[in-house]
C-alpha cells in the first residue's frame, strides 16, 4: 500500500507540475482567478478534511473491535466524500457554464485533468468505504478487520492530503 501510494504521489506530482506550468496560460476563455469560487472550495476542502477525521474515528473503532461504530464512521466518511464529489460536480458545471471546456485553454485542460483525476480517486475511495461497510456488516471479513479499515484509511488520508496540496497550489496561490 505504501508503495502504491508512493507511486501515486509521483502521478499527482506530474499532474500538479503540469498544472503549475500551465495555470496562467489562457488564450481563450476564463482565467483561473476569474472563475474560482474560493469560499465554496474552502468549504469542500474542509469537508474532505473532516472526512479524514471521521476516518480516523473509524479506524480507532475498528481497533476497539466496535463494529457498529466502525460502520457508522465509515458511512459518515463516505457521505462526506460523496458530498465532496457533489461539490466538484457542481464546480465543474459552473466552470463549464462560464465557458471553460476541457479543450478551451491549457489552463482548463490541466485543471480538469488534475482535479478530475483526484475526483476519480475520491470516488473510488467512497465506493471502497461503502463496500467495506457492507462487508463488515455482513461479517465477511474473517481476519483482522482493523487492518483492512486501516489500509483503506491510509488511502483515504492520502487522497485527502493530495487535495490539500491541490487546493493550496491550485486555488489559493494566485497565479
Amino acid at each position, binding site marked *: 500500500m505504501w*508503495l*502504491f501510494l*508512493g*507511486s*501515486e*504521489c*509521483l*502521478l499527482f*506530482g*506530474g*499532474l500538479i*507540475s*503540469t498544472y503549475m*506550468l*500551465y495555470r496562467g*496560460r*489562457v*488564450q481563450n476563455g476564463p482565467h483561473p482567478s476569474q472563475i474560482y469560487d474560493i469560499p465554496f472550495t474552502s468549504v469542500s476542502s474542509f469537508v474532505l478534511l473532516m472526512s479524514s477525521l471521521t476516518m480516523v474515528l473509524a479506524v480507532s473503532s475498528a481497533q476497539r473491535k466496535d463494529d457498529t461504530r466502525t460502520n457508522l464512521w465509515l458511512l459518515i466518511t463516505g457521505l462526506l466524500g460523496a458530498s465532496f464529489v457533489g461539490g466538484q460536480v457542481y464546480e465543474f458545471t459552473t466552470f463549464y457554464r462560464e465557458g471553460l471546456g*476541457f*479543450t478551451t*485553454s*491549457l489552463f482548463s*485542460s*490541466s485543471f480538469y*485533468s488534475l482535479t478530475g483525476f483526484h475526483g476519480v480517486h475520491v470516488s473510488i475511495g467512497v465506493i471502497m468505504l461503502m463496500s467495506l461497510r457492507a462487508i463488515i456488516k455482513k461479517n*465477511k*471479513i*474473517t*481476519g483482522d478487520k482493523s487492518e*483492512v479499515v486501516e489500509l483503506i484509511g491510509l488511502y483515504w488520508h492520502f487522497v485527502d492530503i493530495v487535495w490539500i496540496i491541490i487546493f493550496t497550489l491550485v486555488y489559493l496561490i494566485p497565479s
Partner: protein
Amino acid sequence: MSTNELTLTPSQSPSLAKGKLVVSPSQSLGAVRRPVNTTGWREWLFTVDHKKLGIMYGTVAFVFFIVGGVEALLIRLQLALPDGRILSADKYNQMFTMHATTMIFLFAMPMAAAFANYFLPLQIGARDVAFPRLNALSFWLFLTGGLILNASWFLGGAADGGWFMYAPNSGPVFSPSNGVDFWILGLQIAGIASLIGSINLIVTVLNMRAPGMTLMKMPVFTWMILVVQFLLVFSLPVITVALVLLMFQRSYGATFFDVSQGADPLLWQHLFWIFGHPEVYVLILPGFGIISEVLPTFSRKPLFGYPFVVFSGASIGLVGFGVWAHHMFASGLGPVSVAVFSMATMAIAIPTGVKIFNWILTMWGGKIWYSAAMKFAIGLVILFTIGGLSGVTHAVAPSDTQQTDTYYIVAHFHYVLFGGMVFGLFSGFYYWWPKVFGKMLNEKLGSWNFWFMVIGMNMAFGPMHILGLQGQPRRMYVWTEARAGEGLFNFGFWNMVSSIGSFILAVGVLFFIINVIKTTRNPERAPLDPWDARTLEWLTTSPPKVHNFDRIPVVHHLDEFFHRKYEEDETTHTMKQVATGADLVRAEVAAADVDIHMPGASYWPLLLSVGMGVLGMGVIYGTPIMVVGALLVLFSAYGWVLEPSVPEAIDFDTPSTDGPTKEIAPVG
C-alpha cells in the same frame, strides 16, 4: 486483498455442518472452474508459477530482441552508403523509433524481468513471488503491450517520433498516422505491467526472504533488482502522466503541447526524462546484478566490497532521479540549471566508478575460470568502462552541446546499454542455463558467440564515436557526401565499418541461437552445481521443482551455498571443500517438506490482459470497442476476485497428502 476466506471447502459447507445428506459442491466456487491441466499449452497459458512466467518472459523478450535487431540491421544497411535507398524517410523514422522502443521496453526490461522472476525467489529462498497471479498478469499485460506496439506496423505505420517522442512532433498534426497512438497505448499497458511487477517483487523481497537472510546477506543480483523495482515504482507514474497528456491531446483534443495555445513543449521533455533517466538505470542495474554474481563465482572469491557495491547501486538509483535534465542541455534551460545538472551528472560517475573498481578487485587475487559466462561479464566491465568514460565527456555540458544528438551519443549509449546490459544478460544466459533447463550450453559455441559479439559490437559502435565527433547527427535517414569530409577515413569509411560490424554482431547472436538449438537436442543432463556457485538458487534441483525448495533453507552467510560447501582452514586461510553442491541438493531432497500448497493456475490474468488490449484499441478505433474492452476487464476482475488463490486439495500435485501443512503459499 485476501480471498482465502471465500474458499468453500466441504468441511465449512453449511449443509455438511448440519449433517444432512445432500449433494454439495465439493469444489471451489469459481464462476469458472480454475484450470487444472498441468501439461500441454494450457499449463503455460494459465500458469502462475514464477519460473514458467520467467521462461515465457525470456522467450518473448528474446523474440523482440530479434525483431529489434532486424530493425537495427535495416538501419545499418540504409546508412552503409551515402543517400541510402533501402528505406524511405518515413520507414526509416519508424524503424529507429521502434528499434529503440522494442529494445528498451520489449527486450531489455522484460528480459531483466525474466531473470528477476525466475531467480529472485530462488535467491532469497522463497517458494514463489508474493502475488503469483499478479505476476502472471504482468507478463500478459507486457505481451499485450508489445503486440500493440508492433501491431502498428501493419495498421498504418509505426510510431515515428524517436523513442523519446518529443512534443510537439508527436502531436496529431506532425505525426498524423496512428503509430504514435499505438505507441502510447502499448507503453501504457506495458507500464502497468512493470508497475504491478515491481510492486510484486518488492513485496517478495521484503517479506519472503528465507529465515536468516538479512538484507545485507542478500545476493547482489537480488539487491540490484530491488533497486530497479523502486526506480520503476517511482518513475513509471511520471511517464504515465506524460503519456496520458499526449493521449488526451491526440485523441481528445486537449492542448497540452499545442504551442499556439501557449503550451511549453519542454514539459514533455521534463516529464519524459524524469522517467527516462531512471529508466537507464532500470535497464543497466540488472546487468550489473548478474555480473556481480558471475564474477565472484568464476573468481572463487566473494564480491569485493559487497556493501559498497550495494550502496553504490542504491545511490546510483537515487541520484539517477536528479540528473534528468542532462538530456536537455541544448534545449535552452539557462546556465544555472545546466551547471547544476552538469555537476550532478558528474557526481553519478563516482558510484559507477566504485562499481567498476570493485568488480576488478573481485577478480584480483582470484582463481579465475574463463567460461563463456565469465567472458561476457568481463566484456561488460570493459565495454561499460568505455561507455562510462564517454558519459563523463557528456557531463561537461558545453562539450555535450557539440556531442548530443550526434552519433557520439549513439556510440555512448550503445556501449552503456549493449555493453553494460546485453552482455550482462548473455552472461546470465550462460551462467543460469543449466539451472533453468538442466542442460549446459556449449562452451565452445559460447566462445564463438562472445568473440563475434564483442568484435561486432566494437566495430558497429566504436566508429560511431568518430562519426559523431566528425559531426554526423543521429536520426538521419541518409547522410550526404557533401558533409562527409575528405580522405579515406571520412563518414563513408566509418559508416561502412559500422554496418559491417553490425552484421558480425548479428552473427554472434546467431551463434547463441545455434547453441540453444544444439543444447536442446543434446540429451546430456547438466551437473547440479556446474560452476561451483555461491547462492541459494543452486540449492535445489535443475530445473527446480514447482515449489522451488524441498525445504526452506536457513541462511547464515552471504553466499550461503558456497559456505555450505567450503570451510576456511584456520591456519592457511585457504578454503577447504567439505561437500559438493550435488551432495547438498541430495540432502535437501531427502529432507523434503510434505504437503506444500502452491497457488493454482488461473484464466483471469490472461483474460484481463486481453481486455486491456481491447480497451486500448478502443481509444484508437472508437468507443464501442472500448466498451467491449472495459466489460472484459471488469468481467475478468470479477472472476479473479471470486477465485481462491490456492486451489482445493484435489488439485495438488505435490507428493504427500498426510502430515501437517508446513508451508502455505502466499495469496494474491
